[in-house]
């Protein structure tokens, strides 16, 4: 079975070599993406098979200096591998159609294709590698290749800017990881994950350092607040298939890293769990609230990735706490929620980004307030996007509900297990999650309602819908997955089971009884819902056939000359909620008040900027620049100053030598 996977990797390498031989860009695009798809499908066969048959795979081959390279697929790796490969398949197929337009536009996509393939390849490598140095290498490969995939349209300054955010953020996380693994190596004397996991009895100082550096490293990657600022900048910059994969799998590497930390520190301190909980809650609420304020589709979706990472973090935190309490069932619940939500978020977020990509191809803008009524021109995208939107709000009977349901349950179960005020804290977190759900509903009704429903707000070039045909199978497939996981979560949960049992220590058979069966019971309930809906729909259609249906103008409450511009806008839809979010959300409103009696041209602008981005990172950047400026006089160009420096240095050193 492993043969399939290795073959897949080899095919990836071949695909990377292809641009050297194939001259014609269009064919090159198709060829590379198809090769990748084939490779990924092969890998998918491997991961699914070994997940279902629960075959873990483990090999070491010796190398000098780096010691024996340890490659292994345990439950965690396999699950993430499955997720990554599944979504990369979608991404590659989608890219075929999407990049077609760049080829037509004369953009050079050769480097992009290479780095795209390298991104997929390195993402798979990161998971199987169990050796710190090789892990870091794969990590940086991923970072660099992802950067170059993002800046496809590098002629646009804003694209370069967005890409640079990613570039810096990912290098910062890499630095923290260097520290993390170096300290681990210093204490355990090994780069091998297995040896590290085997280590126990950390002294508290080292453990604190490790937890902090590791968490920071992975949190920056995963986009927890306040390290999220690269997401809303990088996602709009990237082409749709890349931004889809960024959210779907790239940030999940951070989650994978935190799972690894579960393996490394079996007896972690409880405080880390609480910290994780707090960070996750902040990310969830903050993310969705900022999302509500956005005017650009991809930026909005990027903030939702922050929110969903937060939700995943909630599950992880519960799992960590459960392990501190020695309650494996709680660990199982939390992990099941977190991992399942990882997969679910990957699916519907990719679906949404690809949908946004189609919208961009059709209208060449991402400004929500300029769009409208696209559900008629882009039917497939419309349906797919709707299903994605419902799923991301965690509404039944779609997949988002299942994972959030598990996380809710973990809260209440944890509340039962722990005494004192802890139940209240967990209750508050549960309420917070509900609050997030409400905001998400507001946000996606806004997004879908304004972009896809109603009438066109903007005169678009009259042309047949730009939906790339190759995107149909992707959108519909992903949508089907959303529905399927929602209706029958059993199968997917059995894919998660190995990972859970690996950490919680509960045998998979028992998990089937405790975890999977109850959710399996939801299927008839949803079936009932479906039946009732269809029934009533049937009755309605029947009656309407009898009494007839008429098409008329929308009821304008007596006002006759209604235009499309009079529709409710996205900013109007969300405005009050954003006002309630002040001052956490920096909202800038500019308008010209009514001055004269007679009407005159008037304007209203609302712009919401990210307080954390502006107030923390941009300001930090400015501060560093200013502080460094203070020393800028050194290179004065005047040799007399240089001579002075020499004497000054001499005196200072002598003082250090004899006085200090």
């Amino acid at each position: 079975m492993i043969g399939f996977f290795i073959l897949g990797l080899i095919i990836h390498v071949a695909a990377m070599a292809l641009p050297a031989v194939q001259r014609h860009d269009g064919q090159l695009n198709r060829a590379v993406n198809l090769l990748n798809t084939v490779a990924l499908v092969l890998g998918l066969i491997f991961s699914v098979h070994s997940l279902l048959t629960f075959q873990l795979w483990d090999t070491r081959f010796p190398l000098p200096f780096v010691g024996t390279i340890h490659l292994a697929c345990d439950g965690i790796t396999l699950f993430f591998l499955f997720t990554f490969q599944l979504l990369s398949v979608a991404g590659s197929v989608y890219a075929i159609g999407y990049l077609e337009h760049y080829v037509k536009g004369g953009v050079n996509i050769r480097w992009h294709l290479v780095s795209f393939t390298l991104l997929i390849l390195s993402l798979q490598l990161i998971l199987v590698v169990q050796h710190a140095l090789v892990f870091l290498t794969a990590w940086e490969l991923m970072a660099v290749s992802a950067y170059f995939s993002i800046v496809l349209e590098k002629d646009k300054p804003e694209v370069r800017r967005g890409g640079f955010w990613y570039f810096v953020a990912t290098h910062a996380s890499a630095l923290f990881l260097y520290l993390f693994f170096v300290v681990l190596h210093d204490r355990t004397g090994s780069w091998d994950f297995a040896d590290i996991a085997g280590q126990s009895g950390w002294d508290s100082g080292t453990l604190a350092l490790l937890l902090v550096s590791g968490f920071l490293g992975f949190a920056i990657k995963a986009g927890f607040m306040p390290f999220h600022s690269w997401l809303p900048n990088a996602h709009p910059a990237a082409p749709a298939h890349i931004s889809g994969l960024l959210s779907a799998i790239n940030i999940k590497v951070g989650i994978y890293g935190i799972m690894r930390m579960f393996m490394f520190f079996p007896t972690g301190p409880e405080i880390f769990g609480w910290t994780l909980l707090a960070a996750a809650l902040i990310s969830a609420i903050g993310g969705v609230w900022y999302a509500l304020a956005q005017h650009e589709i991809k930026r909005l979706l990027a903030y939702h990735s922050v929110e969903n990472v937060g939700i995943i973090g909630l599950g992880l935190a519960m799992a960590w706490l459960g392990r501190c309490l020695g309650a494996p069932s709680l660990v199982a619940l939390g992990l099941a929620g977190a991992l399942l939500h990882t997969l679910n978020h990957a699916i519907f977020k990719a679906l949404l980004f690809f949908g946004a990509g189609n919208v961009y191809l059709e209208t060449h803008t991402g400004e929500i307030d300029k769009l409208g009524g696209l559900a008629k021109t882009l039917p497939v995208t419309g349906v797919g996007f709707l299903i994605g939107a419902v799923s991301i709000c965690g509404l039944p009977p779609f997949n988002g509900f299942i994972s959030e349901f598990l996380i809710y349950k973990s809260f209440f179960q944890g509340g039962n297990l722990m005494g004192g005020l802890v139940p209240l804290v967990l209750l508050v977190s549960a309420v917070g999650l509900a609050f997030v759900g409400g905001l998400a509903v507001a946000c996606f009704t806004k997004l879908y309602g304004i972009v896809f429903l109603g009438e066109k707000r903007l005169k678009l070039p009259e042309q047949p819908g730009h939906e790339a045909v190759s995107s149909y199978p992707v959108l519909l497939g992903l949508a089907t997955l959303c529905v399927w996981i929602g209706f029958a979560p059993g199968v997917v949960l059995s894919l998660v089971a190995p990972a859970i049992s690996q950490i919680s220590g509960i045998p998979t058979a028992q998990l089937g009884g405790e975890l999977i069966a109850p959710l399996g019971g939801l299927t008839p309930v949803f079936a009932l819902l479906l039946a009732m809906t269809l029934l009533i729909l049937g009755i309605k259609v029947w009656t309407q056939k009898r009494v007839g249906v008429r098409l008329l103008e929308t009821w304008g409450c007596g006002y006759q000359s209604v235009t499309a511009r009079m529709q409710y806008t996205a900013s109007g839809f969300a405005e009050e909620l954003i006002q309630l979010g002040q001052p956490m959300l920096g909202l800038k409103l500019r308008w010209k008040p009514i001055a004269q009696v007679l009407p005159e041209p008037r304007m209203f602008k609302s712009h919401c900027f990210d307080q954390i981005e502006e107030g923390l990172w941009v300001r930090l950047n400015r501060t560093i620049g200013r502080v460094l400026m203070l020393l800028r006089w050194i290179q004065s160009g005047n040799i007399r100053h240089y001579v002075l420096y020499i004497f000054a240095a001499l005196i200072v050193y002598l003082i250090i030598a004899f006085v200090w």
Partner: protein
Amino acid sequence: MVTFSSNPVSWLLFLTVLGGAPLLSGIVNKFKARMAGRFGASVLQPYFDLVKLARKESVYSRSSGFITRLAPSLVWSTTALALLLLPVGPFFAAISFDGDFILLAYLLGLGRFLQILAALDVASSFEGMGASREARFAVFAEPIFFFTFGSMALVTGRFSLQSIVSGIAWDKPLFPIFMIVSSISIFFLMITECSRMPVDDPNTHLELTMIHEVMILDASGFDLMLYQHAASLKLLLYAFLISSLLNPFGRLNPVAGVTLFAGVLVVLAACLAAIEILMARFRLVLVPQFLLYATVIGVLNILIFTFSR
């Protein structure tokens, strides 16, 4: 583990509830009329309206798409399915499992989602306004629900509505107070969700002031019927929630249980009517504070309970 009640009564009851739901709104209207000193329409008036609507032909806006045609049925079926999760007085809930109240909340959420989309589908500025308001208030309404039932779950240590209701220890002194206070916050929730005074005025005719009614401006015929019926189902749902929470007899004494259950329903109807007579509609900016107030009650409630235990 999801359990489907083996007792046929639960399922029969469900059907009767579907049928009887409009009656409650009828009763409320009657009370209102009486308190206002009018004679008022018959209690059965809602039924007449529904039948009339079902017979009318449907008019669709040219701007509308598949959402408008799909939404009403989904709104209706989600509300109906939510009813199935409720224990009615002494009788078992038809469907019950650990955490079913989460499902209940999210089912209503799904309905709301589609209703908002349907409102935005017809490209009307008025309905967009209603949609925005609905979305905004929902953001604050859902936490109340979760807080109340979450705290009950923690207090009783059980996770399904069925077991929570049967798990309330009325003999302990704390529980009655706790239950009463929480049902107050649920009453607030009811007012908001069922678009009653003082949050929303069900029978105004000025679109700018409405929330729920303005969203269904363009619905007509069978769709409108579905919306109306779903609304009355929703009202009944919350009423049932409260009255099964305030039911000490439970299964000990079915007769007393049922009577008390019915009694609470009538009292609720009276309260709603009284409020609608006595109060004016809030300014919309006040509604979030109103809801937060309900949440705060819940917080104090659970705090008091935890500390005095």
